């Protein structure tokens, strides 16, 4: 009997301990395990045969990250014309074996962390997240590229430019290579032209006109869509994307970059009025009623394509591109079309709009990489204009034609063996944010001409004027802000929570909720982050 009890005890302890281990795993490590497994499979699928050939001769091995965007028309990674071409043009002359490593785009940070921790990251990796970069630098995990860039990176400084390259310098060393982003415009608003025509209204140019137009859209229902009518479409996608322009038109225009970086947006002078205006619009039935649940904007896009939405703000130009959602809408609804619109006016009469930072991705070489030299050589090769242009567009006369005005006409139906991968070979031209048309001017010109719609030109013009960055959520510091790194994601989530609550609450409780939510935020993270930001700002920028 005694033995039995003993065994029972031992088993119970075993079980409890395993429960402990399980719950531990469930919380912290199960996700990285699964994602690393995913990463590994895509990594080991092709490389193994390549590694077996590596020992013959002095062939070096260079692995490169390729984001999997999950788009239709992506070529099989590592097994297509373009990979072969790069191997032939760059790999063979330098005796380098190239390998492409896939990672789902939305696992940008999580999978990269797991790879870095396991020392299995490719030799060239990249991220948009500056906190990740600073974290890696402070932990000593990145290769110092200063000397390599000086020796092998002639194209780097001439193509990217000294000014942009400076964003990759930390403590005087070139630790990362920022990808250049020549077009700073990022968002554009559109309004239903056929609705305006029907009501005999002009395109609104001020906030008041916009508001009256929205009220008219609501009351007159020019699209005859009844209950589905959404005067102003909105979703909860990325932070500040769809509503930045509106909110910032209320903010005091005299605030400097420093003020905007060191104060929490909800505390900017005037910001409260902007949120109150949104709250009013929501309560009057002008905004998508379910925007808070629409975390990927899919509901908003489906409303747009069904012709229910009067006005919305989203990625610049995408709607005007051939085959995009405006075309789908035109098929669904007779005579429906959108025109560019830029209504939100600040106290100076300007139309502030969200803009990008001058840098895009941060391209890094992990410290444990044995091919740092080859990595820089490759990036340098990639930035040779002819190479970059061929990678992003293909060959003239085959993939595209150029007319006398210098406008590129892409042959969308081309289906040869050297067909481009989705989004203009995105995974192979990762070093530039936008398709490269051979020169800066050509890129600007073709940016809109692909849309073949004068509204696209108008929207592009609008996006490039009065644009300003969002320095609270996308700050740039030369030195890591510890509390920032710790709270960045939490602060974004908290912002979204505050934002939705304040827009959806009833107007009477708006003031009290605004103040209590801001107080709560400041005690949770705000005070600590603001204080440290101010300190780092004084140290590095002052």
């Amino acid at each position, binding site marked *: 009997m005694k033995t039995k009890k003993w065994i029972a005890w031992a088993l119970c302890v075993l079980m409890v301990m395993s429960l402990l281990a399980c719950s531990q795993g*469930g*919380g*912290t490590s199960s996700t990285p395990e699964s994602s690393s497994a995913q990463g590994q499979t895509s990594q080991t699928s092709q490389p193994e045969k390549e590694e077996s050939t590596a020992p013959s001769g002095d062939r070096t091995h260079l692995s490169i990250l390729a984001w999997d965007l999950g788009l239709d028309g992506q070529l099989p990674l590592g097994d297509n014309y373009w990979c072969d071409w790069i191997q032939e043009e760059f790999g063979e002359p330098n005796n380098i074996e190239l390998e492409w490593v896939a990672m789902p785009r939305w696992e940008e940070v999580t999978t990269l962390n797991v790879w870095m921790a396991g020392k299995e990251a490719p030799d060239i990796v990249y991220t948009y997240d500056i906190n990740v970069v600073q974290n890696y630098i402070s*932990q000593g995990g990145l290769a110092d590229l200063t000397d390599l860039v000086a020796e092998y990176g002639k194209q780097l400084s001439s193509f990217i430019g000294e000014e942009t390259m400076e964003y990759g310098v930390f403590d005087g060393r070139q630790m990362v290579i920022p990808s250049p982003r020549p077009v700073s415009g990022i968002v554009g608003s559109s309004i239903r032209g056929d609705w305006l025509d029907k009501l005999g209204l002009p395109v609104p140019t001020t906030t008041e006109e916009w508001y009256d137009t929205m009220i008219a859209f609501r009351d007159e229902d020019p699209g005859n869509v009844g209950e589905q009518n959404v005067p102003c479409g909105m979703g909860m996608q990325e932070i500040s994307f769809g509503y930045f322009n509106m909110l910032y038109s209320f903010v005091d225009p005299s605030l400097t970059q420093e003020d905007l970086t060191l104060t929490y947006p909800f505390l900017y002078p005037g910001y409260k009025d902007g949120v109150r205006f949104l709250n009013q619009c929501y309560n009057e039935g002008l905004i998508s009623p379910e925007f808070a649940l629409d975390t990927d904007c899919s509901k908003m896009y489906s409303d747009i394509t069904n012709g229910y939405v009067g006005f919305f703000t989203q990625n610049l130009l995408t709607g005007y591109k051939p085959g995009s959602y405006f075309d789908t809408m035109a098929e669904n609804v007779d005579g429906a079309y959108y025109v560019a619109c830029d209504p939100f006016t600040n106290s100076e009469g300007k139309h502030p709009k969200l803009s990008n930072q001058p840098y895009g991705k941060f391209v890094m070489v992990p410290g444990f990489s044995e091919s740092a030299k080859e990595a820089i050589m490759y990036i340098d090769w990639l930035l040779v204009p002819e190479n970059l242009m061929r990678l992003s567009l293909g060959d003239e006369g085959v993939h595209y034609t150029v007319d006398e005005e210098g406008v590129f006409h892409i042959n969308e139906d081309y289906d040869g063996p050297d067909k481009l991968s989705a989004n203009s070979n995105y995974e192979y031209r990762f070093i530039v944010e936008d398709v490269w048309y051979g020169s800066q001017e050509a890129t600007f010109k073709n940016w809109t001409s692909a849309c073949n719609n004068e509204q696209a030109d108008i929207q592009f013009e609008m996006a490039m004027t009065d644009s300003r960055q969002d320095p609270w959520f996308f700050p740039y510091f030369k030195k890591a802000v510890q509390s920032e790194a710790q709270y960045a994601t939490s602060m974004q989530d908290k912002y979204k929570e505050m934002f939705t609550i304040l827009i959806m609450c009833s107007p009477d409780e708006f003031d009290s909720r605004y103040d209590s939510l801001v107080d709560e935020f400041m005690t949770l993270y705000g005070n600590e982050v603001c204080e440290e930001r101010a300190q780092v700002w004084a140290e590095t920028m002052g």
Partner: protein
Amino acid sequence: MGGRKRRIRYYIKRDWILYAMLILPLAYYLVFKYAPMYGVTVAFKDYNIFKGVMGSEWVGLKYFRSIFAMDEFYRVFRNTLMLNVLDLLFSFPAPIILAIMLSEMRGVLYKRISQTIIYLPYFISWVVIGGISLQLFAPESGLINIIIRRLGGESVPFLTEKWHWLFTYCGVGVWQSAGWNSILFIAAIAGINQELYEAATVDGAGRFQRIWHITLPGIRPTIVMMLILRMGSLVSIGFERPYVMGNTMVREFSDVISTYVYRVGLESSNFSLATAVGLFQSVIGMVLLVLTNTIANKIDGGGIF
């Protein structure tokens, strides 16, 4: 003492085949459950992902101190407890009731078919369930609210108001797990001696009296055991369900330890902090487990250990 030792040797000699069979599962636990536990040390270290677990510096209780200084931690801890307690209240009795109802059913074919249908939700991923619940419960476009509005009522904010959301969260949980969890109770009910029921019927007991006086006492050990197991996991919560069911409107309630650990640990790369939270959660879980077991033992000796 000597006699005891000899007896153990005797048992091993007699049942060595059984012991040999135990080696594989034991090895499994050692390799996959115990060996990774060295990673828990990360909670006491300044984890540097490039230096690895072994190479990082020890910092003692630094991360635990910073957890307990954070207001956010209390919120996620409170939410975890609240969601689990509510879940216990609703989804613990549900499978028992379901099992009793199923076992009282007469038609065998009907019973089998309904059992299978009731199990099915358990095999649907939470992501899919999240999508379904959005289609059903959304305030404007959700099917249920459309019906309510057509009948002249007002939209119910099942997903966008925090108190309603709690109800939705629990209800969906019951729908998903009740069928599966009832299997154990159905098996326990099947094990009750049929003669007891016959005798009770002869004595004039009605259906409810039989359920109350025979079925429920018959499955009491099973109920107590399941309850103890559930108590142990009262502070741990799965990641998918709150993450998928939650939205920014109800984050005040839907932000729990697992989503917090994901956000802080993986998205913001604070592995040490996240591990410390996870370890704390496990310790509380174990305390609760032992506590419940002690209480169960005190009441009628029905504890597991």
